C-alpha cells in the first residue's frame, strides 16, 4: 500500500511538469514553406504619374507627412495620378526638375530661380502661415550674448546657417549682412546645419547651445523649437526684408492643361473649409495663390548681390 501511495505521488509530481511542458505555445502559427521554389525578382516599375516633389527641406517622412494630403487632394480634384517623389538634396531636386523627373516642384525661391534656368516655370506660390505671401529671414542670438547688440557686432563671430541654398535660413541674412558691409569673410566661422532634415531646428539649437554666436533662420522656425528651448533666452537680432515665399513650378515641357488643372485645384484650397484648412496647415501654408516668374526677381537680385549662380548670368528669362 505504502509503495502504491508513494508511486502515485511520484507520478503526480512528474506528470504535473510534463503537463505544463506538454502544452505547446498557443500563439504559434506554423506555416510550411518550400524554400526551394525560387524566382528572380524584378524591381517594379513605378506607374506613370505626375511627379510632385517637395524641396528636401526636411526628411522624406516629414515631406511625405506634410504634402501627402495635399497630393491626394490634388489627385482627387484633378483626376490625375500624382505621386510624390523624394530627392535627397536640393541639388538633386534641381537636377531632377531639369531631367524632367519632377513634374511639379515645390521649392524655395532661391532654388526656383535655379530651376527656372532649366525652363521650369512658377505657376503658384503659397501664403505663409503668417498669412503673408512673403517670408523673411531672422538673425537670432542668445539674449545673454553681451558682445552682439547690432548687426555690425556680428563681425568676427561664429555663424550657424541652415543651408548654403536656404533662402530664409542663410541667403536673406547674408544679403542683410552685405547691405551692412559685412561679407562672409568677416565671420570667424560660417557653418551649416547638418543632415537632410530639421536643419532650421538644428541651427537654432546649435546657437542656443552656445556653439555659435548667431544663427540665421527662416521666420517662423522658432515656433517649431519653442518646446525644446526657452524662448526667453533667444533674442531676434534682425529680420530681413520680405521676399516671396515658396513656389510651385512646373517642369519644362509639362502639359499646360495639367498645370492648369493642378493650379486650379490649388487655388481652390481655402482655410474656410475645414478639410482643406487641415490640408493646408499640414503642408505649412495658409493658401496657394497664382504666381509668375517675375515675382521672384527680388530673389534674383539678392542672388546677384550675393554673387550666386555666376556661371549663368541671366537668371531672368525676362531680362527686364
Amino acid at each position: 500500500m505504502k509503495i502504491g501511495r508513494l508511486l502515485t505521488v511520484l507520478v503526480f509530481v512528474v506528470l504535473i511538469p510534463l503537463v505544463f511542458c506538454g502544452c505547446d505555445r498557443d500563439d504559434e502559427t506554423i506555416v510550411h514553406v518550400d524554400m526551394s521554389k525560387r524566382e528572380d525578382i524584378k524591381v517594379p516599375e513605378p506607374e506613370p504619374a505626375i511627379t510632385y516633389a517637395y524641396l528636401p527641406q526636411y526628411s522624406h517622412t516629414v515631406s511625405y507627412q506634410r504634402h501627402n494630403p495635399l497630393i491626394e487632394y490634388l489627385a482627387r480634384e484633378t483626376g490625375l495620378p500624382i505621386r510624390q517623389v523624394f530627392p535627397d538634396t536640393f541639388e538633386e531636386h534641381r537636377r531632377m526638375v531639369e531631367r524632367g523627373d519632377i513634374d511639379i516642384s515645390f521649392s524655395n525661391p532661391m532654388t526656383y530661380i535655379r530651376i527656372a534656368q532649366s525652363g521650369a516655370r512658377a505657376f503658384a506660390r503659397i501664403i505663409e502661415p503668417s498669412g503673408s505671401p512673403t517670408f523673411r529671414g531672422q538673425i537670432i542670438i542668445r539674449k545673454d550674448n553681451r558682445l552682439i547688440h547690432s548687426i555690425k557686432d556680428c563681425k568676427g563671430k561664429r555663424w550657424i546657417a541652415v543651408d548654403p541654398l536656404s533662402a530664409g535660413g542663410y541667403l536673406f541674412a547674408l544679403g542683410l549682412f552685405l547691405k551692412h558691409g559685412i561679407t562672409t569673410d568677416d565671420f570667424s566661422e560660417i557653418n551649416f546645419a547638418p543632415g537632410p532634415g530639421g536643419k532650421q531646428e538644428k541651427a537654432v539649437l546649435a546657437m542656443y547651445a552656445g556653439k555659435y554666436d548667431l544663427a540665421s533662420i527662416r521666420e517662423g522656425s522658432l515656433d517649431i523649437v519653442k518646446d525644446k528651448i526657452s524662448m526667453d533666452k533667444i533674442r531676434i537680432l534682425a529680420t530681413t526684408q520680405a521676399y516671396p515665399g515658396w513656389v510651385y513650378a512646373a517642369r519644362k515641357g509639362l502639359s499646360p492643361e495639367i498645370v492648369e488643372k493642378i493650379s486650379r485645384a490649388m487655388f481652390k484650397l481655402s482655410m474656410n473649409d475645414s478639410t482643406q484648412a487641415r490640408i493646408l496647415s499640414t503642408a505649412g501654408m495658409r493658401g496657394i495663390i497664382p504666381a509668375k516668374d517675375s515675382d521672384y526677381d527680388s530673389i534674383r537680385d539678392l542672388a546677384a548681390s550675393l554673387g550666386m549662380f555666376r556661371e549663368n548670368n541671366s537668371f531672368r528669362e525676362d531680362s527686364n
Partner: protein
Amino acid sequence: MNLLGRLRFRTKINIGITVIVVMTALILAMFVTRMASDALVQEARKRGRVLTGNLVLRSVDPLLSVDLLQLKTMVDEITEVDSDVVYAFIEDERGRILVHTFSDGFPVELINANKVQSGSRMNIVTIDTGKEKIYDFAAPVYLVGKKIGTVRLGLSRTKVQQVTNSLILAISMLTGLALAMAVLVSTQFAKRITARIGMLREHAENLVKGNLVVNRDKKTVNTCHEIRNCGKRDCPAWQDNLRRCWYISGTKCPECGENNYPDKLTNCRNCDIYINSSGDEIQELTETFDVMANTLKYHIEDLETAQKNILRQQKLLQTILSVSPDQVSLVGTDLTYMAVNAAFARSCGKKEEEIMGMRDEDLFNEEISNKRKQEVISIFSTGKIINKENLYQPEDGDPAQWFHTIRVPVYDEDQNITGVLSTARDITELKSYQSQLIQSQKMESVGKLAGGVAHEINTPLGIILGYAQLLQEDVDPESQIYADLGIMEKQARFCRKIVADLLGFSRQTTSDKIEMCFNNSILEVVQLVTHTFKLENVSIITDLDDRYPIIQGDPEKLKQVWLNLLSNALEAMNGGGIVKIITRLDTQDMTITAFFADSGYGIAKKNLNSIFDPFFSTKPVGKGTGLGLSVSFGIIEDHGGKISVTSPLPEGILEEELPEEAGPGTLFTITLPLEPGKEKEILSSEF
C-alpha cells in the same frame, strides 16, 4: 507488497534522497528548461520584433525615395550583423518585393506565408522549411496612416532550440553530478545514522532479553562534577558514569531546582552542562533508553522483592487456610466460589481449583444449596452476619456432623459488598462432649438421688432382713412360713445388693486406693472365671503388657469392673466364643489401657450411648439390674479414668479363629491414669 517496509533503513534513506534529488532535478530541469526555452524564444521574438521595428523605421525614407540601394544595404546589414537572421526583405505598398537577402532567387511561397492583418503593427508566424523552423516577422511600414511597404524578417528558431538543448544537457549533467554527490553524501550519512540506530537496536534487544545493565563506554560520558569540579559528594550524580545528570533526580546544582526527572529537564535544557554534553536526538534516545533500562531494572528488582513477599505471604495464608480444619469459602456477587480452602474442597470431594467458579448447586443437593444460596443472598442484601450451628447429614450414610457456620460480608473500599466469606467449623465432637456432659450431669443427679434413696432405704431394709432372719429362727424350717420368710430374706438381700450398687454408683461408698498391679488385678479375675467360661465354651485370651504397670487403685472395685465386663461378655455369647483382654502401658501419657474384646452379638448402635445409664438393660426383667455397667462407669471415673465402648469390633483386635456363631463383637476400652489426679485429660484412646 510491503516491500518498502522490508528495506533496510540505509537503503530507504538512499532511495529517498535519490528520489528527492531526481524529482527536484527533473522538476527543475523541466521548469528551468521550459522557462529558459520560453525566455529564449520570447527574447528571440522580442529581438525579431526590435530588428523588424528598427528596419521598419529605417526603411521609411528609402521606401519613399525608392532608394533600393539603401534598402538592400539595410537588409544585407541586418543579416550580417545578426547570424540568427535567416533572411530579410522589403515589399512595397502593393506587396511587391523591392529588396531581399536571398542570393539565388526569392522563394516565392514566402511572400504569402505571413500576411499582416490590416491595422496590425506586426504579425509573427513560425515557418517550417522542412530543415529548420523560422520565426517570420512581418511589419507594415505606415506613414500618415498609409501603408507604404512591408518589412519581413526571418529569425532562426533552430538556433534558439540548440541553445535550449545545450541548456538541457548542462542541467542534466549538473543533475547527474548533484545526484552522484547526494547519493555519496547520503550513503555516508545513512551509514552513520544506521550504525547508531543499529547500536540502539542492539541496546533495545538487550533490554527485551532482560539485560537491563547499561554497558555504555564510560569514557564517552564526562560527568557534570568532572566538568564543574563542584566536589559535591552528596549529589546523586557524583561519580555516576552511567547516567547523565539531567536524568538524575535530586541533583545539587544550584540551577537544578527541586523538580524530579522528567520535570527538571525544563531547567536542564538551559544549563551549560546540558548544552555542551547533550548529543543529537539519537544520542538522547540512547541515553533515555539507558535511563529507562536503569529505572526498569530498579522497578523489576522492587517488583521481584514485592512478589517474593507476596508469594511468601500467599503461601503462608494458603498453608494456614489449608491446614485449618475449618471449611473456608468466599462467594462472589455472582454467587460463584472465588476461593475455598482445602478443608472445604475435601468436604465437597473436589479439588480446590475445580470449585472456582462453581455455584452451590454444582456442589450440594438442592435442599442444601438453596439454603446456602438464600443465606448468601440475604447477606448481600442486608449485610448481616450469620452465626449459627447446623446439622449436616451426609448422603452416604456417614454419621451426622454438626457445624458452626459464620458467614460475613466482604466489603470493598467503597463499602459495597463484594463477597461472602463463610467459615464452617466441625463441632460434632464438641456437640458429643456437650451431650456427654449433660449425660454425666444427669448421672450425677441420678446418683445423688439414688444414693440418698438407698441410704434411707438401707436401714429399714436391714431391719426387715434382720426381722426376717429372727422370725425364721422362731418357725419350723419345714413350714410354709419359713419358706416365705426365706423368700423375704432373699428378696431383702436382693434389695440390699441393689442399694449397695446404687451406693457404689453414687460413689457414696468409700474406696481405698493402694498401689496395685494392674495386670494381676485382671489375672485374678480371669483365673476366677476361667472355669465357668470354659463350661460355656468361651475361652479367655490375655495379652498383657509385660511391664506390669503399677497403678493407684482399689483392687476390689476394679476386680468388680473386670468381673462385670467379663460376665457381660459371657452373656453376649451363646454357644461359645472368645474374650480377649489386652493391656497396654503408655509411658508418655502415664496411662494404662485395658481392652476387653469379645466375639458376642455386639451392641446395637442406638444403645451405644445408653449402656452406661443406670437401670439400662437389654436383659429380660429379673435377669439384671441394669446397674453393672453404670457402677463400672462410676468406679472407673472414681479412678480418674475413662471407659468407652465400640461395637462392632474394630479390625485387627481379634485375629484368632472365631466360632461360626460369633457376632460382630464388642470392645470395651478402659484407660486409667497411673497416678490418679495427675492424669492428662483422656479424650480418646487409640489402639
